[in-house]
């Protein structure tokens, strides 16, 4: 169970922080350009953060008590594979879900 204080702290803190990031330049900095090295790093925040977060969830799923699980590896491969081939987020999610459900029946 998530602690109520923690939850609201995250909702409000994240709301304020995200607004600050969005307002930073539009509201405060004006149209002065960012240093090159900074924008170069910022371009890779999403593609670095997402795999960093998701890889441990794939390798050691909490639902199986941290044991590597063939079913979840299969769903991962299906999602990533279809995502890379089609560049279509929704299709990739559906493939992962189908692999998860179908694999669940086959692997028992």
């Amino acid at each position, binding site marked *: *169970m*998530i602690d109520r204080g923690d*939850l609201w*702290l*995250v*909702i409000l*803190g*994240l*709301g304020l*922080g*995200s607004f600050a*990031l969005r*307002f*930073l*330049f*539009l*509201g405060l*900095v*004006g*149209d002065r350009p*960012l240093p090159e090295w900074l*924008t*170069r*790093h*910022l*371009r*890779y*925040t*999403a*593609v*670095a*953060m*997402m*795999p*960093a*977060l*998701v*890889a*441990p*969830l794939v390798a050691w*799923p*909490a*639902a199986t008590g941290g044991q590597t699980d063939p079913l*979840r590896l299969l*769903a*991962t491969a299906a*999602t*990533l594979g279809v*995502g*890379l081939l089609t*560049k*279509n*987020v*929704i299709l*990739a*999610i559906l493939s*992962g*879900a189908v692999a*998860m*459900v179908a694999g669940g029946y086959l692997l028992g």
Partner: protein
Amino acid sequence: MPTPSSNYWQGFQAGLPFLLVIAPFGTLFGVLATEAGLTVFETLSFSVVVIAGAAQFVSLQMLQDHVPTLIVLASALAVNLRMAMYSAAITPHLGGLPLWKRALSAYFLVDQTYAASALEFEKHPEKTLAQKFAFFMGAMTPICPPWYAFTLLGAWLGEAVPADFGLDFALPIAFLAMIAPALRTGAHVVAALVATLATLLLAFLPYNLGVLCAATLGMAAGAETERRMQK
């Protein structure tokens, strides 16, 4: 001479295709949040106050893992750092607006409103400030209010879905699906691979600090690869 309202409708049409992304993701967030024990009101507040899909999923996952609040905030804000880039990129177009309109635009500045507007403003730099603001508000309309609405729908659905439904893996699947199309260049692939390897090697670190360190290493690797490829 186009009127502000026709720019509003142009924006609306530019934003409309993103509804195909907003609807399933908003619904999924609503379902997962209620599965995690959030009330309908808490779930809706999350989407209205934060209004950033990926960061909401990240913080929800970490809250469930009982990660300390400061680490949750740092990780989710790191996911949202790209918003600062959007803010910088949109400033030459909307920076002349009065403060309250800039604040309003900043609140609605998300991946999809940015994508729709940046494309249009680059194609039509001759648009006036008022026309650009009208376009932006038009693009926001089929993106942001539906984000709240589908979160709410998901929250109601989530209350009806039994808790043990293999939903634990819905979130990783959603992330994995978002990663693949984001791997646009070799540098993006390097960033993702380094982050993946580092997060697995650093998993022993407490408080999910391994995730933050791995993401930082991934960013540095991506930036460095890009710099070398330009030479």
